């Protein structure tokens, strides 16, 4: 069983977000990059499959050489091999197009993408990739179990969950809940040493068309100071919410 986990290189969740060049470019200086958390939940489940059904786990990212440290981290976590498609994508549409080409060349049974990346929050790569490949897609996936060729899955929906059954091949959108936070793998020294020996292949991108481009970034308006209400003055709070904020 071949598993492909699509990885996005994103700013750490605690990063302060700033822009440069007249707010047209994200300022990466001083920003720590991490494996997109949704992708990491997916990778962790893939490593579980590697142990359970001897799945071969490949990680892939579409990006320039600055993404290689997180691919090495994925290898240290347990992936067998890594691929970097050497492109600087404009949007998720282009990422999906690059990944589609890869999946048409190599054959994968299970493709895991994160629900969305925490930087551009496009939330489109998994669904587009699946559709391009004519495979089913399960978004917001919070459970994946395998018995032979049968998969049991759960999708988080508004106010609950949906239990599904499927067969391979399939694309899923991973998120928190697919594995527990405590089950995320922190690479140990052995893993880090082994990762250096594992293959990291750089492949050229295909020609793609541009679907969207970011013209300019904006930061949210600075908000005024908080209005403090005395803990004994709950009527005052209700009055402000009703007559000033007008939320009731």
């Amino acid at each position, binding site marked *: 069983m071949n598993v492909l986990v699509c990885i996005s290189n994103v700013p750490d969740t605690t990063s302060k977000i700033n822009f440069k060049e007249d707010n047209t470019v994200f300022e990466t200086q001083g920003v720590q990059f991490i494996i997109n958390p949704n992708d990491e939940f997916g990778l962790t489940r893939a490593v579980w499959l590697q142990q359970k059904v001897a799945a071969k786990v490949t990680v892939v990212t579409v990006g320039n050489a600055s993404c290689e440290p997180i691919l090495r981290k994925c290898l240290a976590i347990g992936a067998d091999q890594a691929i970097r498609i050497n492109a600087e994508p404009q949007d998720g549409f282009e990422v999906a197009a690059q990944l589609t080409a890869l999946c048409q060349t190599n054959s994968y049974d299970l493709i895991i993408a994160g629900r969305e990346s925490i930087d551009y929050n496009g939330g489109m790569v998994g669904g587009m990739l699946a559709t391009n490949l004519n495979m089913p897609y399960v*978004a917001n996936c919070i459970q994946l179990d395998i018995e032979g060729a049968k998969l049991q899955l759960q999708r988080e929906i508004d106010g*609950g969950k*949906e*239990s599904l059954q499927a067969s391979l091949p399939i694309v899923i959108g991973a998120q928190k809940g697919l594995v527990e936070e405590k089950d995320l793998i922190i690479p140990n020294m052995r893993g880090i040493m082994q990762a250096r020996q594992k293959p990291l292949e750089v492949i050229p991108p295909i020609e793609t068309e541009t679907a*969207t481009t970011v013209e300019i970034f*904006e930061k949210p308006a600075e908000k005024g100071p*908080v209005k403090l209400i005395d803990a004994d003055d709950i009527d005052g*709070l209700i009055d402000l*919410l009703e007559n000033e904020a007008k939320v009731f």
Partner: protein
Amino acid sequence: MAVVVYLESQDGQIKKAALEVASYARAIADAQGLNVIGVGFNIENPEQLNSFGIDKLHLINTQGDTFFDVARYGESVAEIVTKEKAKLCIVSASANGRYLGPILAAKINAAYLSNVVSLPTQYEPLQVKRSCFTNKAFNITQSHKEITVLSLSSNSFGLKEKPGTAEVIEGSYASATTSLKVNAVDKTSDKVTIADADIVVSGGRGLKGPEHWHLIEDLADVLGAATACSKPVSDMGWRPHSEHVGQTGKPVASNLYIAIGVSGAIQHLAGINSSKIKVVINSDPEAPFFKAADYGVVGDAFEVVPKLTEKLKARKV
């Protein structure tokens, strides 16, 4: 030419998010001199759409199949977008809307833009403002494709009534092959969901344990609000994952967000930043949430919250 909207329904009833999407599409159509074409599945009350400026509704009957079969829904909407020669198709930011959007876009070779927060800033070529970096920033994005699918953030446009008459025509439920089969849907039915809620009441570690969650639930009940929690609370298993709001949890874009005993880590604040009014109740005056909130009460949640609930209850009757 037309704007197509996917009108999500549940148990035959049109969802609020769908009416917001309809309102948004109407505003675009008015600015551009277009028709608004709705696509709905199993809707039992289509007359409601007369108040929201839908010109024509393709009403599709799935013949008793209640499963949200994304492949067939996507194919059905795609056929209508093509038939109506629409350049724009709009879906909501519900779980199903976000599921459908990219699949639909890929089927019709359209650009897809999610988390859209306002009307297009320009039409030729199309540019929209969307949130990114989990609400820590926005960007203006331009579409270069002939067709664009937009997913509108909840509560970003609001409901705007516009009387009219929606012509209802029967749509066909397109076929599609998929290996997916739904076995069960497990839903807390009578509760307001975070995605739909106008008001969200959220609890953090300050509540000291799951046995105190009635404080959150009682306040939510009196407000008709959804309940939510911080990441540590869901990680410790006090509350289900589905209630976790923040960067790796659910985004919240309610009109009112009340955070109780939530310190306000940057990841949490990012997730709830789109909410319009934020209230924090916390015993620690140094909690970072006070910097992000509109109104704050420094006080013991165990005293303040029951008092607030009682007073709101009294006010209602």
